[in-house]
């Protein structure tokens, strides 16, 4: 009984992932639709493996998450561009203005994907690089330790929290 129940629950997710995999195939094949007969089983296999590796979590608030992504993408693009500009400015500067330090930043995000997304995002933003996690603290390396990095990091944390529809506001 419970097996049919879980099957009913995962089947739509599997179908969605199959569709996504087919879309990715179309992109890889640069729009060539001749290999559809070959793509169908391969995409299904990829979708099945992804179900094993990325377990679907129950009860997500999709509208909240979509809104989170819509806000996150421009934020991320703009800030990673600024990150590049910041590094370029320092690299071309004759005196190399750097004031290095490592801070410990206590995270409010839950474990798993939200934390990973936060750490990876931080590494692409201006002046910050995540080094490691220790307990609930992220060790973050700063190129310029003279200012206060906390407001910027809090902002990233809020944006990432919105991506997953989880709390990160504190």
């Amino acid at each position, binding site marked *: 009984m419970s097996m049919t129940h879980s099957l009913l629950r995962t089947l739509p997710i599997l179908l969605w992932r199959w569709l996504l995999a087919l879309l*990715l195939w*179309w*992109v*890889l*094949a*640069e*729009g060539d639709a001749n290999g559809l007969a070959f793509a169908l089983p391969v995409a299904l296999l990829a979708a099945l493996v992804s179900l094993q590796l990325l377990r679907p979590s129950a009860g997500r608030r999709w509208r909240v998450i979509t809104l989170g992504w819509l806000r996150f993408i421009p934020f991320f693009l703009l800030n*990673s*561009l600024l*990150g*590049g*500009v*910041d*590094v*370029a400015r*320092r*690299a*071309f500067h004759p005196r*190399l203005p*750097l004031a*290095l330090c490592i801070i410990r930043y206590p995270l409010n995000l839950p474990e798993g994907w939200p934390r990973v997304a936060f*750490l*990876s*995002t931080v*590494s*692409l933003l*201006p*002046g910050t*690089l*995540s*080094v*490691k996690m220790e307990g609930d603290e992220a*060790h973050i*390396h700063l*190129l310029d330790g003279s200012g206060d990095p906390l407001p910027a990091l809090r902002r990233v944390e809020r944006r990432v929290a919105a991506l997953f529809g989880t709390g990160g506001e504190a």
Partner: protein
Amino acid sequence: MSVATLLALSLLAGGLFFFIAGTLGLLRFPDQLCRIHALTKADNVGLGLLSGSLALLSGSWAVALKLLLIWLLVMAAGATVAQLVAASHQAGREGDRD
């Protein structure tokens, strides 16, 4: 010259600029963690602008999406690699002190 080509050329120039900046950072920055900063940020922006330029030139949606996909892959790999090397470097330093 059309507007799209002009835009593509300026994106290309921007991309090259960031690649050069990344290499310069790799050569000039004084310690390892800073060099990781230089690589992850400058190179990813460089490749992003380059992909954007080529997407405009190719004039095909599928190719543009494929370039985007490759860029995303490189970015995900870059962010992961940066953390792995940084953590490994840090662990090595702490090991030396003991």
